[in-house]
């Protein structure tokens, strides 16, 4: 997912018709049709990624205990709303500073407020077709990525964080932190210049969410009772079918996430590319789910459904950094490694006493790192001396991962710390016991006293 400014990497081909077809005028697609095709890809991709917001909401509602389900629903719909508004007002311009709008060249875009309007008073477009796609559709698509980043955070911190401090964090994350990081690559900033490659955002979206979640989890501490008496005390979630539904929703939305990141559909080669991306994305999820399933069966003697769900998502995150170049079998492998990471990382975090309620850190941060490194085996960007070697590319990928991680973690940690000092970020023990629904929302998720027998 790159603005045309980035020409290195295979995706750079997308907006420029491949020469093989350009000559063939009779079959060539007229410019305006290209415009509509590309726009349509953004719109379809955008609504599919929007749908991921529902996926996160259901996944998290299923993996927290009943007493915190309303809160989790509230957070998810609120963060999606806030992300939309903050990205519109500030984030979009920070992400795409273009040529002249950097505050710090290559690092920080200018957070000028821009009010987007595509048609002038006469109904004529204010942008020209030459851009290759409607900028409104691109905006819509990018907004959904920003929202996805915020969704990742809410799961990790569930069941103990206060509503409003969380939402303030979300506002800054979606208005500044994510857009700054993403601008380094997709806005033509330092990472893009360095030859970093991250097709749809394993690092730029998923690990940003993961780092923000990690910083919060450390400062917030674990849920009371989770690590009692030197032991891990699991707190099973309220509803496996909701968690499963959420995973399927995310799986579906991911076709938009990765497929739309081709950024173009208006040529044969783009249509081919999007098709390959769909197929690879799907099979990587399959690989992740199956790897987790087989592994939990072997390790624990039973299949752990929540690990399978996490495994599918880890497969998706893993393939996100390069869903186009791998073959199908390579995609299965890349996804499967993601699934394996989850199965080992979940208990590892427990041992580190980091309480990640839904497994967002293994899924989005760790599988995101893996996926970003794996890129190097298939895709090498062009440097001053031509196409880079695999090992050079790996260094650059690690550089990108490190830079993004450092900035996001430090910025998030500082922000969480500030919120902690100003308002406190953790609910009282009492509120944690009775559940956030009763404490902060005032309507329990399943408020009836017994099924079907409530008299009031």
């Amino acid at each position: 997912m790159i603005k045309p400014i980035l020409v290195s990497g295979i995706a750079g081909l997308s907006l420029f018709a491949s020469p093989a077809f350009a000559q063939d005028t009779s079959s060539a697609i007229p410019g305006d049709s290209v415009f509509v095709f590309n726009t349509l890809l953004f719109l379809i991709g955008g609504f599919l990624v929007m749908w991921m917001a529902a996926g996160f909401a259901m996944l998290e509602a299923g993996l927290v205990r009943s007493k915190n389900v309303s809160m989790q629903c509230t957070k998810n719909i609120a963060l999606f709303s806030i992300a939309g508004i903050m990205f519109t007002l500030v984030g979009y311009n920070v992400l795409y500073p273009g040529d002249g709008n950097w505050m710090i060249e290559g690092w920080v875009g200018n957070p000028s407020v821009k009010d987007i309007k595509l048609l002038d008073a006469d109904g004529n477009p204010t942008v020209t077709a030459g851009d290759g796609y409607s900028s409104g559709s691109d905006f819509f698509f990018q907004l959904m990525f920003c929202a996805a980043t915020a969704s990742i955070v809410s799961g990790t911190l569930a069941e103990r964080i206060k509503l409003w401090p969380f939402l303030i964090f979300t506002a800054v994350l979606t208005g500044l932190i994510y857009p700054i990081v993403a601008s380094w690559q997709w806005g033509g900033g330092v990472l893009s210049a360095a030859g970093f490659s991250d097709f749809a955002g394993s690092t730029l979206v998923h690990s940003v969410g993961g780092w923000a979640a990690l910083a919060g989890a450390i400062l917030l501490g674990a849920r009371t009772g989770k690590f009692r008496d030197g032991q891990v005390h699991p707190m099973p979630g309220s509803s496996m079918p909701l968690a499963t539904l959420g995973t399927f929703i995310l799986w579906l939305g991911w076709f938009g996430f990765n497929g739309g990141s081709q950024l173009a559909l208006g040529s044969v080669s783009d249509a081919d590319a999007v098709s390959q991306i769909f197929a690879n994305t799907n099979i990587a999820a399959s690989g992740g789910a199956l790897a987790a399933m087989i592994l939990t069966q072997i390790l624990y003697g039973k299949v752990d459904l929540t690990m399978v769900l996490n495994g599918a998502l880890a497969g998706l995150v893993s393939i996100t950094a390069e869903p186009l170049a791998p073959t199908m079998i390579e995609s299965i492998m890349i996804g499967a490694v993601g699934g394996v990471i989850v199965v080992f990382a979940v208990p590892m975090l427990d041992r580190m006493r980091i309480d990640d309620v839904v497994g967002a850190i293994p899924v989005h941060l760790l599988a995101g790192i893996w996926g970003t490194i794996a890129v190097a085996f298939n895709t090498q960007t062009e440097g001053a001396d031509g196409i880079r070697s695999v090992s050079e590319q790996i260094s650059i990928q690690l550089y990108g991962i490190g830079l993004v991680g450092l900035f996001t973690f430090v910025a998030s940690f500082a922000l969480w710390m500030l919120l902690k000092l100003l308002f406190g970020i953790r609910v009282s023990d009492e509120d944690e016991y009775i559940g956030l629904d009763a404490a902060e929302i005032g309507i329990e998720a399943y408020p009836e006293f017994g099924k079907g027998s409530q008299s009031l």
Partner: protein
Amino acid sequence: MKLIIAIIKPFKLEEIREALIKIGVQGLVVTESKGFGRQSGHTEIYRGAEYEVTFVPKLKLEMVIPDSLVDPVSEAIATTAKTGRIGDGKIFVLPVDSAMRIRTGETGEEAL
């Protein structure tokens, strides 16, 4: 002290609670249960097959009260829980040896 166990129709709960408060009952505990009795449930058809719903939703109220309240409480429940239709429920009275309020350690009728 006596333990009153009352099996009632669920929708009567609120009315009964209010009646009990009026005559001085200070606490009770309600449990959702299913009852089987003369009110014989009903026959349902699910996917073309008949089956009998033998158990009917009921609420079970339990409260420990001083002996002096047994009659008024029974009466209050009987009056408010009554619809006159089959399945209205039962009131049982059981002897209680002792009671304690956990918060204060009070025992006996003080604890109720």
